[in-house]
């Protein structure tokens, strides 16, 4: 009956608790509820992006362009805000999601219609999107005082004690939970990644499903683009540089199989939170900044090695089955 207990998620959840315990032994303030809420808030963008990336990875693709997409959308909405400060925030968010989705769709079309491997497509669009930011911004920054107060205040607004940024992550988690478990699209994603050949036979259009996975990932990157730029109150070419690898790392730590088909919403979220805790704890537990990179690298390796152990198939166990039958 072990299969009803999600092994990976439990181990990862345990690892996060152990980590928190360790941190609190060096700095007890870290586990105060208010600080944990802060950590969650800080991790929210990573959670949102990891969920988008999860969908893409589940379909046997990878999206390396999320960070560039985020930066381009962020810059675009920041510039729109500067040009039209009166534009209401919901409109800004709609534009961000749409822009992101369009960029995701570009990736998706190239994967779907031209059958170019996703890693190649998104490696290409990653550099192209970054370059476009430079072209539209002329390399200039958009600074906090240029943005409208409504624009920068939105992600910080408190609702029931939590900032909107955190709520954005929570709502995304809930929506994804429902989508992956209870919709045709969600189940198709597992099917396409688990056995693309069989998916074709069952009438699931593999390319189209991958296309929509990219659109979802792109839309979330767009949303995060706005949240990021408004939270840090600055937009420039390099924001979130290299963040794509962190997003992939979160998925991988969360047990999303890079080979597709295996993974869960809970895993992706926990993977992101694990990284978020490490990143937020390092500055406060007085570890030399020079150690940070090596520590996060080791964390990824250890988590992945653990995951692999937990997920290893145990063969058929003919002998056991035979005994059980008697």
């Amino acid at each position: 009956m072990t299969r009803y207990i999600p092994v990976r998620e439990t181990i990862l959840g345990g690892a996060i608790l152990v980590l928190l315990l360790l941190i609190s032994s060096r700095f007890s303030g870290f586990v105060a509820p208010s600080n944990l809420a802060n950590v969650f808030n800080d991790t929210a963008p990573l959670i949102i992006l990891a969920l988008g990336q999860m969908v893409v990875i589940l379909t046997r693709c990878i999206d390396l362009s999320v960070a560039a997409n985020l930066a381009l959308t962020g810059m675009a909405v920041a510039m729109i805000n500067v040009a039209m400060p009166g534009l209401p925030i919901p409109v800004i968010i709609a534009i961000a999601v749409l822009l992101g989705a369009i960029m995701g769709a570009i990736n998706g079309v190239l994967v779907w219609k031209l059958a170019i491997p996703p890693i190649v497509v998104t490696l290409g669009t990653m550099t192209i999107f970054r370059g476009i930011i430079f072209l539209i911004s002329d390399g200039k920054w958009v600074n906090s005082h240029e943005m409208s107060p409504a624009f920068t205040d939105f992600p910080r607004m408190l609702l029931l004690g939590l900032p909107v940024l955190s709520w954005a992550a929570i709502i995304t988690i809930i929506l994804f939970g429902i989508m992956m478990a209870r919709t045709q699209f969600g189940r198709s994603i597992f099917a396409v990644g688990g056995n693309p050949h069989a998916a074709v036979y069952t009438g699931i259009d593999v390319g189209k499903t991958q296309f929509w996975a990219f659109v979802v990932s792109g839309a979330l990157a767009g949303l995060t683009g706005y949240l990021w730029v408004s939270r840090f109150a600055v937009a420039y070419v390099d924001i979130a540089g290299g963040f794509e690898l962190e997003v992939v790392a979160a998925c991988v730590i969360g047990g999303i199989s890079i080979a597709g088909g295996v993974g869960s919403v809970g895993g992706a979220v926990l993977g992101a939170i694990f990284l978020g805790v490490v990143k937020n704890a390092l500055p406060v537990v007085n570890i030399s900044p020079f150690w940070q990179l090596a520590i996060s690298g080791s964390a990824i390796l250890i988590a992945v090695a653990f995951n692999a152990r937990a997920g290893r198939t145990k063969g058929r166990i003919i002998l056991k089955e035979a005994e059980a039958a008697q």
Partner: protein
Amino acid sequence: EDDVRIALVVKALGIGFFEAAAEGAKEAAEELGNVEIIYTGPTDTTAEGQIEVINALIAQQVDAIAISANDTDALVPALQRAMQRGITVISWDSGVAPEGRQLHLNPSSNPLIGNMIIKLAADHLPDGGDVALLSATTTSTNQNIWMEEMNKVMGNYPGIEVVATVYGDDLADKSYREATGLMQSYPDLDAIIAPTSVGIVAAAQAVVDAGKVGEVNVTGLGLPSEMAGAIESGASKSFAIWNPIDLGYSATMLAYELSQNGVEATAGAEVPMGRMGSLTLDENSEGAMADPFVYDASNIDQFKSIF
């Protein structure tokens, strides 16, 4: 072509500070008349990227290269080759080791900057207090020199204690997180000193978000255009910077003098730099342009639209 071509090579394009410096370079070019400015830099702040840029400039046989270096030492061989091919090489802002350039233009004297950043914090802490440093990357030459100079004069500021140094890698999100971390680890923190234009903005934002405006003062080196919001919100009471326009202007003037007017960059030499007077070189062929200038609520509006 008979134009004198001077290349202004920066750490990376798209940083406000360098954009402003490019303005200054163009101003100098106009003043000189027959100068063409090539404003260029790599994709990201790496030495290898700058070397590729330098190779392309050598190939074009530009007359002079004025560079703000991503790495003191790594650029030396490439720049030496440029000099062998008859190109004048100077560094400005962030320096190159003496073998790799003819002279180096410091924006201001390093001891002055070191003193300035701690003074800005101390001025608002008459009874002393805890301060922390938020630097750029661990390898940024100029940041490290300034912090070193600052440590030398700490004795003049009794009661002020530096409790930590963290690195934001000139990334907004990392600097923000580091600043947040500082405020958590040191609840009694009184000031964050960020001698980097990316870090200071992110730190100010972190202070606002933590609701610690008035408790934690963010100061250091920043650009008025980027810091206007922080001054307005009160997260930063004051900060300093030299004028990047003047810096680009001076660097261009110096490069021109060396390449066209046969001026030798030797110790003690005085190299003219247009409206900025002249640069006196020390034994390392280095010189400082001017004192940093302090910006606060009283003058920020006047400058925020300029650079």
